């Protein structure tokens, strides 16, 4: 149970690129993926910018190998999961005990919405094939079946921390000797349901979001998927491409303050970060980079910032929110940001917190605003906080 769990591969699709190389290029060149809606259809089209994956469902279907009639959430998931597996270079995956632990927030809601418009006029109408994959778990199974993974398949949904929870759950399945290999992460496509839901909360920025800025106005929703391949020590030993990163710490804690709002002192975030540090055996000063949850809402950024202050003061690591690039991808964000965290270690890079103009006056620190190359990044903390006070932190470490 004390054996380490290694990261053997990563895969990603987001508004800034359809694979790892494209995303890295956008990060290095400060190219955000937020824009007016192009593929996604909503009455808010002209008003609310979003961070879309720049492919329609037909193109995504071609890229993934699934039919284009399937939920976009599954299409995105399959693209990123396939990249993660091929990146890991595990040849005999079928011979190993392999699991797929995926997260998403609203399952096949993009299709359910289509069904529902007709169903409401007459409950005998609407195509059943549009609602058959409504359940979150059904999206995971569509992808698991394509990947040929069946030893353990499950889905986690805890709002915006979902895929961070999927990642540490996967690691624990390896530590408990239930599995040898786990593909873990999450996926979410833009849906009217979530866009309108967040819109009722009046936390969507009608401009491009500015996380951790004094004048931040809210978040931009995004879509995408991010997965990592976790392997046991035994499997790692046989890989031709030796892992260079391990998952060294994690923690989930509950803010227990309000169904949607974070507590002013960021209690849940503080507990998650300090719990992850404890698990990894590291001290705050060991952390080289924090990938912030940093949504750009008034409430999140001050709560998260306050928690960081409580934990790290006076010595702050470099930090940034990559949501200024990808938008807030909800159930996928923990997976996408885990991939960014791992890449930061592997490539020795740190990403800029785009569009940060005025630092928050309550905080004695400021996120990084330029892309940093050739820097030694040994330990990265990745934060993911969600509705229901669900706070998770992961720590990735260089081997």
């Amino acid at each position, binding site marked *: 149970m004390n054996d380490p769990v290694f990261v053997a591969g990563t895969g990603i699709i987001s508004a800034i690129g359809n694979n790892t190389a494209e995303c890295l290029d956008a990060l290095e060149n400060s190219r955000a993926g937020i824009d007016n809606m192009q593929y996604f259809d909503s009455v808010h089209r002209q008003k609310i910018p979003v961070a879309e994956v720049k492919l329609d469902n037909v193109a995504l279907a071609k890229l993934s190998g699934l039919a284009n009639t399937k939920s976009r959430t599954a299409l995105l998931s399959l693209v990123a999961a396939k990249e993660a597996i091929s990146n890991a270079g595990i040849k005999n995956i079928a011979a190993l005990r392999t699991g797929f632990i995926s997260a998403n927030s609203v399952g096949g809601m993009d299709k359910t919405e289509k069904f529902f418009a007709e169903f409401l006029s007459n409950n005998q109408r609407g195509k059943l094939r549009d609602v058959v994959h409504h359940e979150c778990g059904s999206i995971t199974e569509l992808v698991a079946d394509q990947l040929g993974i069946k030893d353990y398949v499950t889905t986690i949904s805890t709002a915006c921390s979902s895929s961070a929870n999927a990642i540490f759950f996967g690691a624990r399945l390896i530590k408990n000797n239930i599995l040898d290999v786990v593909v873990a992460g999450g996926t979410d496509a833009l849906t009217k349901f979530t866009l309108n839901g967040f819109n*009722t*909360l*009046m936390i969507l920025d009608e401009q491009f979001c500015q996380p951790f800025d004094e004048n931040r106005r809210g978040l931009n929703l995004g879509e995408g998927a991010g997965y990592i391949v976790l392997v046991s020590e035994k499997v790692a030993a046989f890989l031709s491409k030796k892992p260079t990163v391990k998952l060294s710490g994690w923690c989930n804690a509950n803010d227990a303050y*309000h169904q*949607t*709002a974070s507590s002013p002192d960021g209690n849940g975030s503080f507990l998650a970060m300090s719990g992850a540090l404890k698990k990894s055996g590291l001290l705050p000063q060991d952390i080289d980079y924090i990938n912030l949850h940093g949504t750009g809402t008034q409430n999140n950024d001050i709560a998260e910032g306050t928690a960081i202050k409580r934990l790290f003061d006076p010595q702050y690591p470099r930090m940034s929110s990559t949501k200024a690039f990808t938008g807030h991808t909800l159930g996928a964000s923990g997976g996408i940001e885990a991939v960014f965290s791992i890449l930061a270690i592997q490539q020795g890079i740190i990403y800029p917190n785009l569009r940060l103009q005025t630092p928050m006056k309550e905080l004695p620190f400021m996120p990084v605003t330029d892309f940093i190359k050739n820097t030694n990044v040994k330990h990265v903390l990745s934060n993911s906080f969600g509705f229901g006070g669900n706070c998770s932190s992961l720590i990735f470490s260089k081997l």
Partner: protein
Amino acid sequence: MLDLKTQIIAQLNLQDLKPEDIANDQPLFVEGLGLDSIDALELIVLLQQSYKIKLSNADDGPKVFRSVRTMAEYITAHQAQNV
């Protein structure tokens, strides 16, 4: 104001309350009725739907929704504007 109270009770599903239980000047939030930020958002929709008044700046919420009286005054002022 009685109508407004009935509407508030319905919108926020305050099952145990009757309109006469809410005093005109009683604070609606925290120490008063104990409403929170989600209720404020519900009340914004109530103004929009029942009175066609759009409160676009959420920061105005605390002032407008301080009590039933402040809400009623806001409605009266803005309905006059609309005419």
